[in-house]
């Protein structure tokens, strides 16, 4: 799009500029800087390599690669089918749904947070939670996945958690239904305009995904401060 005034002459400050050299030069510099950083990094720090794999010699702790350590940390609070399977799938599906759920047309192509307070808050909460869990898992977990401060010696044995309790199933189910049901219903009153704009399906979907995300945090709190193991426990699955 050319910005033209009434006399069809170009304005002094054109909106569109040539890719060569304007963009290509930026890309070129970015590549060179990246290459310099990578070279220095690779000369000064060696990739780790321990002893040859030995199935009979367990590493303790055995840590996943750092980008999955957050999920491994969640294993403390949830069973593997939630922490290792359901949560990753929900994160991927949730991310993919964002464009189809966000009804707000404002803030395209600019860092405009004022008109998008809610979505930005929700997204950043999840984003920082992901990295917070990674930091805890990577730097604060020692043998048997016990919590160790950075300055603590891993050789010092730590007691396993004190006895954990599970919430009775009836009560637990009530809590879950109330959490998702009331959470969606009450927020619907608070965000009335948003609800009307989105319609029931989209609103409930966004609400459930958001509540699940916050629910991970809440379960962590329940576990740490109230020693809760499960909210619901059955022979088939437990939450």
């Amino acid at each position, binding site marked *: 799009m050319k910005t033209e005034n009434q006399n069809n002459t170009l304005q002094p400050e054109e909106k*569109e*500029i*040539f*890719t*060569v*050299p*304007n*963009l290509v030069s*930026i890309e070129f510099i*970015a*590549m060179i800087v990246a*290459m310099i950083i*990578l*070279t220095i*990094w*690779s*000369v000064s720090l060696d*990739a780790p*390599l*321990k002893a*040859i*794999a*030995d*199935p009979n*010699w367990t*590493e303790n702790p*055995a*840590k*996943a*690669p750092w*980008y*999955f350590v957050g*999920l491994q940390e969640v294993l403390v609070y949830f*069973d*593997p*089918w939630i*922490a*290792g*399977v*359901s949560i990753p799938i929900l994160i*991927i599906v949730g991310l*993919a749904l*964002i*464009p*189809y759920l*966000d009804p*707000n047309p*404002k*803030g*395209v*192509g*600019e*860092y*405009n*947070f004022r008109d*998008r307070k809610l979505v*930005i808050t929700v997204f950043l909460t999840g*984003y920082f939670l992901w990295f917070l869990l990674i930091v805890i898992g990577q730097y604060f977990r020692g043998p048997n996945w016990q919590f160790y401060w950075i300055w603590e010696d891993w050789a010092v044995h730590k007691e396993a958690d004190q006895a954990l309790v599970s919430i009775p199933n009836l009560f637990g189910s009530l809590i879950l239904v109330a959490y998702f049901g009331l959470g969606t219903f009450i927020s619907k009153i608070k965000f009335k305009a948003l609800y009307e704009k989105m319609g029931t399906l989209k609103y409930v979907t966004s609400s459930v995904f958001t509540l699940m995300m916050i629910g991970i945090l809440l379960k962590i709190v329940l576990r740490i401060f109230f020693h809760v193991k499960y909210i619901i426990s059955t022979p*088939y*699955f437990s939450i």
Partner: protein
Amino acid sequence: MKLTQITETPVWKSIFRHKFEDTPRNRSLAVTSNVFLHLHPIKVDRDAIKFRFTFCLGGLSLFMFIVETITGVLLMLYYRPVPEYAYLDIKLLEHTVLFGMFLRNMHRWAAHAMVILVMLHMLRVFLTGSYKPPREFNWVVGVMLLVITLLLSFTGYLLPWDQIAFWAITVGSKMAAATPFLGVDGPFHEFFHITDMNDMKYLLLGDSDVGGNALLRFYVLHCVILPLASVLLIFVHFWRIRKDGGISRPL
């Protein structure tokens, strides 16, 4: 010899189809007559290409992918994906191959960098609202690229066949066994008569534990299947950026 003596030769002219005078026509041709540059439009929005808008994060993600491809192919020359040789080959690479350690380091650090850059790129796209119409689908393509980037990194992690690799993948693949219905340790696995010989983990590892089959599977995923999938999706991603009207701008 003058430069023009070269640029006037038939060989030169057969390769570069435009002159060098700084004219709008030549600036356009520099883009359109070059298969790599013509990913770009001829002209771009002045503000869209500001560093502080994209922080070059998408471009740098691509650059890391290219670095990984080049260093990765070189590593393939020295590496055999079987338990008998894998670890030995990494040791030999580090100690007997000229610049072998450097090569391995660069492949490793660029992989970490790529994971971080892709995550940051997603953050930038989110914060600038660039997933909103008409770019919804390209965001979804991006999410798939994010997943593939993580899987590429994860499958590569096993290949050195040392204790870190072996136990990290052992921990990771346990998750596959916890898949509801389809994993032997998952809820409702009785439903489909799932055992440790036919569940998700077996599919991933080619065995019920991490071993030679897993190493081979991860190698093929890491060196063939996932890179091809990335390339395919990156093409779609870039094509869509153009078709969706270029980098997002305020309305």
